[in-house]
């Protein structure tokens, strides 16, 4: 489904939640699945997506950061990321 949050804009003044971050990552990166934990300020996201295949770690993490734009470091105080390319068995 389409995200109800505009890219790069704070969705709301309410504190961010792991559920919100999960929904936005999965909406923002095609085919992604995300597990997000956090306390409203510091979050940890484990993200798998086929789109990560063949990308450097930096590029993978940038895709995740890009979902949140300037909210990272602001409304989302800290976002720790681990990325995995899904369907890795298909990588030659």
């Amino acid at each position, binding site marked *: 489904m389409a995200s109800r949050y505009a890219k790069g804009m704070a969705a709301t003044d309410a504190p961010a939640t792991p559920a919100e971050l999960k929904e936005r990552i999965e909406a923002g990166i095609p085919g992604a699945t995300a597990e997000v934990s956090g306390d409203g300020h510091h979050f940890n996201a484990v993200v798998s997506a086929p789109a990560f295949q063949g990308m450097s770690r930096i590029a993978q993490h940038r895709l995740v950061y890009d979902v949140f734009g300037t909210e990272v470091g602001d409304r989302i105080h800290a976002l*720790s990321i*681990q990325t995995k390319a899904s369907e890795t068995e298909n990588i030659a």
Partner: protein
Amino acid sequence: MSDEQTTQIREAIQSAISENPVILFMKGTPDQPMCGFSARTVAILQHVGTPFAAVNILPDPRIRQELSGLSNWPTIPQLFIDGEFVGGCDIVTEMYESGELQTALGVEDANGSEPAPEPPAQEPAPLSIENRL
């Protein structure tokens, strides 16, 4: 702020990155990190034993602004090796655990399989620190 000052900060960042083989932009200093992610990254670099320059981004918000503009990376810390952006705390941790960091730094891979070291509570180590920004 004047454009001229902003340009000066950007140029100072660029020359610091090109002049220091290993440089970490962080919150606080290696002796007194002001953020857990910066502390963890410092602890890894110290454990690996490579000398590194460190720049505290906290004194002037424009440092972070210009740095993130250059690196296209929103968070701090940011590690550069040989002029190349390597990553932040998460990527440095993963690279340390896989041994890639040691390879990139040209140091021995003796501890590659160890979990990343936790930052010491208060244990400043001697370092070459450059903080002219």
